């Protein structure tokens, strides 16, 4: 059978649409600080309200805006993690690599970032890590200013305290 006799059941019709992406007003404030090398969280204005890093425009629990900004540490705790063994589409990073849910000291919610300079098999919940920043001249409006997080020599955080550390970290 020659190819010309085979029935064509589908064709590719790629769709390209152009968008001007905006992050949102609250995320934009966060990203502007990030360009200066600072991690800032946002919270509702009432005292003791949870601190969100990164902020998305509201405290999702109450639906109120997060008007108050507080700087958080670039030290964090591993809330949980996965070792990814397959490539991420459009990301050059080579598997296997560790993607962790990390809570920065002073924040009350985790964000996702890479862990490196570690033995993948030794990564664990409660582990202490710190940001490894890119050179200052490469800083942009992006969490990618932090290359990855690496383990630091601090005692593990008990599980019940993860997500509740002050900005000063474990000692306080």
């Amino acid at each position, binding site marked *: 059978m020659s190819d010309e006799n085979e029935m064509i*059941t*589908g064709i590719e019709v790629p769709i390209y649409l152009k968008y001007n992406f905006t992050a949102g007003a609250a995320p934009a404030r966060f990203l502007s600080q990030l360009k200066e090398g600072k991690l800032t969280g946002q919270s509702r204005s009432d005292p003791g309200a949870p601190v969100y890093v990164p902020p998305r425009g509201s405290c999702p629990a109450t639906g109120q805006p997060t008007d108050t900004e507080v700087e958080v540490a670039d030290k964090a705790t591993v809330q949980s993690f*996965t070792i990814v063994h397959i490539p991420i589409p459009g990301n050059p990073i080579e598997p296997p690599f560790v993607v962790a849910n990390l809570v920065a000291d002073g924040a009350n919610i985790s964000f996702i970032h890479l862990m490196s300079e570690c033995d993948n098999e030794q990564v664990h919940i409660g582990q202490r890590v710190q940001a490894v920043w890119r050179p200052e001249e490469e800083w942009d409006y992006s969490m990618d200013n932090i290359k990855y997080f690496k383990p630091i020599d601090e005692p593990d955080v008990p599980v019940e305290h993860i997500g509740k550390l002050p900005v000063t970290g474990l000692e306080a």
Partner: protein
Amino acid sequence: MANLAAVVGIGQTSYTTKRNDVSIAGLVREAAVNALNDADLTWDDIDAVILGKAPDMFEGIIMPEIYLTDALGCNGKPMLRVHTAGSVGGSTALVAASHVQSGTFDRVLTVSFEKQSESNAMWALSNPQPFSTHLNAGAGGYFAPIIREYIRRSGAPADVGIKVAVKDRLHGARNPLAHLQLPEISMEEVADSFMLWDPIRYLESCPSSDGACAMVIASEELADKASKPPAWIRGVAMRSEPTMYAGREEVNPQAGRDCAADVYKQAGISDPRKDLDVAEVYVPFSWYEPMWLENLGFAPEGEGWKLTMEGATSLIDGGDIPWNPSGGVLSSNAIGASGMIRFAEAARQVRNDAGDHQVPGAKLALGHAYGGGAQFFAMWVVGAEKA
């Protein structure tokens, strides 16, 4: 009180990697025609169509219900399109049911689908967003850390997920529509399969499927006259919570617990393991069986894995509460349809029409779906009897 309504027709396509013999319209129509035939009805008997699917970006068609109107015989009738992330198939069934339970319509058709071969769900789910670290490795990458936390808390043995993966595939081998047909699958094979997102292995994950599922839902008066036994809708519930908020319980989400409590109350269920005969639950990654066993109240917190390991959820082992006798999402995953397949398979069980994967004498069944960051839940309980 809501009017009584029942499922009087169920139609599915077979689930497979690529249905390149049909267009998207052809796929949904196949499921719809199967449902009409099962109900012994024609297009003219349908008052409205309720369509569900996951994000439009999967197939790259905006609001596909607009184009699918003709294929679904909806010209001149109401058409509604539901989208609630992964729970959409279940939510769509609930919205369809509300058309009848509200007394507004006598008989409606509901359809949900995904044609993953004409789409790129992985891309749509991990589409890079400017300003963000691009580390979103699809649904598996999102749920793996939550599963890890479950394992830490419960102290479950490492092979619980493997056991679920085997059990659901053996169930799927009894369901001729199931995508994965793996009657010879073994614990060793799953354990040796490639680790994707540690602790999730390849064979502990759902496949990517093309497929559609459809149901006809009718009022009590019409269901009483149906040609085959109806599946009476005994309870319906939905719950949502935000993806992330400080202190959120991600392993055992409150939205799931609340949703289950609501649907059990309506159906008069006090002990789900005892009162229900079978459950079709959305388990896209094997570890979600023990997690949902706890979330849905079939086991105390931290002990769901024991039911799995005892074989309580296995039809083949004669377990007392078979979960996913159809093979579940682990055997077929046409994303937008997956929730509705759970609802429809629950209905097939109480209609005593589930073929080789029938749970003998099933009278009361749970259909369950979840979506987003395990934050959107949809459930129904269907029964062989009205009350």
